[in-house]
């Protein structure tokens, strides 16, 4: 018993269970402390991220339908990757994403920056405005889809948008119904814009408040008129880091668009004109065909694409550079 106590002592001293005033920390004790702080987290990360990703990579080389443990004769090599890359629907889903990103990234960026500037400028009721624009973030995409689909953009007479159009004598528009409805991008883009632009506005406001006031004073003394000039030469350069962060966050979020497409569009988003990559993967791997092999191959391809785009965008916009903060 006494022997065990002696060997355990350095560890417990470092761990703080011992009350002795002089610490005797050995290397072993400090290591132990590190592991009981970080160990549980790392273990979970291995079990729920590393092993699954590895397993999924393994499955992508097999004809794995309805199973997570395919037999060795189901090995198909790179067939799943070839099938996915030559799959018309998968490639079309990447086009859908690109259209979506091309719409949502610029408008989110411009609106959240505009809101931040306007809220930062106003002198009264600032907290009220900030709260109102941020409040939609409390709404899930499911709730927002419900309002958009059933009330605002209901394709019938009593829908709010159609009511407004009716006041101006314009025919009702079947927003989300029918075969390839022409206006569905408007519905989808406004929904995401409404939810997320307050969130990014908060980021921009935080950055705006970091800009030292004396820069504007100096500009005033130098004869720069407040407004466009100071915005272009003082405000915007100081928002560089935040702008890059916002652009990347919006783009990565758009890549993973799922909720609103699933809930707004017919057939759980499984429609040829607006199937996002994630929706397509979901229906491939967990729909009726349960093709986990092809689904895994698709997930790997997507993960790779996101990594490349992120790195490329980061390089392009100089992410991580300290200047301008």
């Amino acid at each position, binding site marked *: 018993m006494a022997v065990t106590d002696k060997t355990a002592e350095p560890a417990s001293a*470092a*761990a*703080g269970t*011992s009350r002795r*005033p002089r*610490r005797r920390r050995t290397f072993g004790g400090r290591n132990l402390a*590190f592991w009981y*702080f*970080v160990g549980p*987290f790392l273990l*979970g*990360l291995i079990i729920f*991220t590393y092993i*699954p*990703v590895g*397993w999924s990579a393994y499955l992508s080389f097999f004809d794995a339908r309805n199973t997570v443990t395919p037999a060795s004769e189901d090995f198909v090599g790179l067939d799943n990757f070839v099938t996915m890359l030559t799959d018309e629907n998968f490639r079309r889903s990447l086009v859908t994403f690109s259209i979506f990103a091309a719409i949502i990234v610029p408008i989110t960026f411009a609106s959240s920056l505009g809101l931040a500037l*306007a809220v930062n*400028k*106003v002198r009264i009721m600032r907290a009220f*405005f900030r*709260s*109102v*624009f*941020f409040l939609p973030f*409390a*709404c899930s*995409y499911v*709730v927002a889809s*419900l*309002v*958009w689909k*059933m*009330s*605002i953009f209901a394709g*019938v007479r*009593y829908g*709010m948008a159609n009511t407004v159009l009716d006041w101006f004598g314009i025919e009702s528009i079947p927003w989300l119904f029918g075969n390839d409805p022409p206006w569905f991008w408007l519905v989808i883009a406004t929904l995401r814009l409404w939810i997320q632009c307050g969130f990014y506005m908060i*980021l921009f406001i935080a950055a705006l408040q970091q800009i030292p*006031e004396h820069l504007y*004073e100096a500009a*005033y*003394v130098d004869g720069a008129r*407040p*407004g466009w000039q*100071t*915005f272009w030469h003082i405000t915007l350069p100081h928002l560089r880091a*935040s702008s890059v962060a*916002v652009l990347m966050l919006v783009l*990565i979020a758009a*890549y993973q668009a*799922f*909720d609103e497409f*699933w*809930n707004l569009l017919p057939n759980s988003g499984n429609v040829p004109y607006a199937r996002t990559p*994630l929706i397509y993967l979901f229906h491939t791997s967990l729909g009726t065909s349960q093709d*986990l092999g092809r689904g*895994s191959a698709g*997930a790997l391809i997507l*993960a790779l694409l*996101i990594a490349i785009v992120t790195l490329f965008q980061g390089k392009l916009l100089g992410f991580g550079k300290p200047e301008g903060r």
Partner: protein
Amino acid sequence: MVSTKDRPKPVGYRPGVGSRASRIVNFVGLCLLSVVFLIPFYLIVRNALSTTQDITAPGWMWFPTDIQWGNFTELFNDEKVPMARSLLNSTVVSVLTTVGTLFLCTTAGYGLARIPYRHADKVFYAILATLMVPSAITFLPSFVMVSSLGWVSDLRGLIIPTLFNGFVAFLCRQYFLSFPKELEEAARVDGLGYWGSFWRIVIPNSKGFLAAIAVITFVTSWNSFLWPLVIGRSSDSWTVQVALSTFLTAQTVNLPQLFMAAAVAILPLVFVFLFLQRFLVQGVAQTGLKG
């Protein structure tokens, strides 16, 4: 540091941008935009308290002819929609996810920030690497794992895989790096080890940061849809978002009931926004600035 407030302002300089006219335009614009932003909330409340006839009436009705409080009890009495059960599930999942994430990520973040260890860098990069792959893409691999553990349609499958959030651990590490070392050193002199000083000194002095992380985690968990949809195969394990989505895509829809369900689903978060917004704003600013 000399505060910029103490220095004399240049003559004629007024803080804020622009003339009086531009400020008025700005204010009016903000008021109009506020109304637009609030319309969806108004519609939820209006429709939740209306009859189907009011909602689908040929002329637009700003307010229900007769407020239907009964829609609320009807929603919970309807056996086709497991509203009470899914609300309970959502509450359990969000609360446990928040508590678990906070515990695991703060301890990991502290260990990485403060305990010198030869391989700490490697561990840190192993965590950073998981940030490269967006969580939504890993839904399939994670599903493979969870289904082999037998946690499909089980609250464990909804909660446990989401606890090990590399991004939150990263934020915690960054935060603890900037935590004043002197406080901890004083604790060490008093004989506290890492574990003791973490719980008695560091955590009690980090309430604002912890609240910010907690609120963000709670909101994200309550609103998440893809993972609960993947795991919640039977209606017993639906979260409120999955229940709403099923309700929304059903063949026949009872409009007032649908909107009442939506109102009930956002109510907890509206309270969070009203009372804890300070922490939420702080959390967003922290989350975003780290990119």
